[in-house]
């Protein structure tokens, strides 16, 4: 049963990777590496954890997902499209004039996008605000937010980290896509954020560490977060930037470049299309 479920999620993840690569190649610009590193995380949330209804994106009781590392939006579009928030034919229009799919998440336009991001560092505070509102409204919903490891260099992340702990926002679960790379190189060389788990612990968070590409671990951590009361949970997900395409894995270069037609062909072959 559990095995079937994981096999199913793996297949969805494979499809999501294909959609990401195709939409980015078509768009001609965008962020490949950080979209691929988060595929299992976002897939697990939308297909196995969150309570949500693609037919009613504004359903009050829904769980919320905030993509704080907004440049990774192709993974979110791929997942939202697959859930049915909008027609997948929109993938082809990514980043074009008049498209439903803006270069970075825009809540004013795209069904399923909760928060407008793209300017790094701003998602966790907004997730806190959403969580405080749902608490005041006595709605039983959970709020998830995905951060980048490079993004965690922003001071605002740590202001927000204090807020979540201070207000005991235990229906909030943050996940760090700890892929070790940012634009200018390895996070450890540009501006070290390790020991990241201990930092969050010191800020009063319940911290879990997982392999961010293993559904069993991600789902177990998400369940554990849900059962943790009195403080927020941070899941540090160890991931590989560019995951799933051998020549993109751990390559700084694929942060903000997209596959050429030849690369796309190779990549799709690896993903067994």
């Amino acid at each position, binding site marked *: 049963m559990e095995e079937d479920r994981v096999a199913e999620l793996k297949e969805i993840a494979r499809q999501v990777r294909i959609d990401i690569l195709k939409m980015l190649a078509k768009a001609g610009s965008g962020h490949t590496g950080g979209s691929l590193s988060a595929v299992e995380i976002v897939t697990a949330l939308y297909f196995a954890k969150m309570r949500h209804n693609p037919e009613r994106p504004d359903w009050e009781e829904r769980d919320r997902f905030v993509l704080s590392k907004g440049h990774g939006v192709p993974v979110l579009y791929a997942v939202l499209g697959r859930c049915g928030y909008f027609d997948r034919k929109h993938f082809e229009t990514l980043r074009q004039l008049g498209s439903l799919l803006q270069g970075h998440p*825009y809540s*004013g336009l795209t069904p399923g996008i909760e928060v407008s991001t793209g300017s790094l560092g701003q998602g966790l*505070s*907004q997730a*806190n*605000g959403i969580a405080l509102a749902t608490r*005041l*409204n006595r709605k039983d919903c959970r709020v998830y937010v995905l951060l980048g490891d490079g993004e965690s260099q922003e001071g605002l992340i740590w202001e927000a980290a*204090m807020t979540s702990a201070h207000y005991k926002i235990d229906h909030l679960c943050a996940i760090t896509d700890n892929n070790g790379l940012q634009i200018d190189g390895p996070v450890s060389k540009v501006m070290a954020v390790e020991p990241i788990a201990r930092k969050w612990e010191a800020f009063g968070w319940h911290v879990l560490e997982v392999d961010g590409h293993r559904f069993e671990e991600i789902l177990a951590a998400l369940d554990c977060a849900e059962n943790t009361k009195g403080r927020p949970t941070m899941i540090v997900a160890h991931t590989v930037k560019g995951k799933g395409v051998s020549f993109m894995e751990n390559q700084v270069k694929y942060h903000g470049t997209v596959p050429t037609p030849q690369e796309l062909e190779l990549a799709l072959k690896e993903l067994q299309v």
Partner: protein
Amino acid sequence: MVEMLGTREMYGDTLVELGSENEDIVVLDSDLSSSTRTSKFGERFPERFFNMGVSEQDMIDTAAGLAASGKIPFASTFAIFATGRAWEMIRQSVCYPKNNVKIVATHGGITVGPDGASHQCMEDIALMRVLPNMTVIVPADAHEARAAIRFAAKNRGPFYIRLARDKFPVLYSPDLDFELGRARVQRVGREATIIAAGLMVHEALKAIDLLEGQGLRVGLINMSSIKPLDRQAVLDAARTTGAIVTAEEHSILGGLGSAVAEVLAEECPTPMRRIGVRDLFGTSGEPQALLAHYGLTAQEIARAVGEVIGLKTGGENR
């Protein structure tokens, strides 16, 4: 004796009023709640009051999240920290997605006084005015402040309301109505019109008395709604009096004076002068001394009016 009333005192009281009328009103502050008077709301509705500590960026983005889930957040701190420190949060998370966040900042302008340049905000109107979807209001007295705050609570979208540290003379009655984008024509002029906001409305009134003594009838517009600007009121004043002076407790760059100049330059070129802080930082001092030091006085306004009248060519510019 003129009655004096604080715009920030009125803010605190109005929040309490709004809080009991509407459960969705929530208030955030960044460790200045005793100064901004949001503490009044905090005492009355502790579960709906969030002190964020000294973290203005976090305050604005948290407010954005609250608004995204249907709350009506009022976020307050001093004008420079609200609009300067957190500018990009206001841009990305409040204005771009049109979140229903009300930023009410106190301690706008030079009259912050002895705290000096670090705390005297002469740039907030410029910083807020340039943002799409933002509404910018500078009330001229406490009753107008209350009306504007109540208006903001009832109308969706991002608002910036600038209040002052010092009390203002009372100009209006407590039952004043606020209408967005509608200037208050305090007095119709003949030779020139002063367009002012906030504290400078009061200096302009004194300037008008001075000019009356010289046989000049000068008009006055309280342009509390700086964005959207009442373009028609500006044009009417320009066409009927042919000379305009703006007066604001703000830099002459990017604020009310600039907004008026933009309208006039495009639609009705008219001799004009701007009274404001002339591209300078503030300095410590008592408010009255600072106003004199930076030329934000009735005398300076009157002098500028004399100058623009002198610039009028070929008589009335009808």
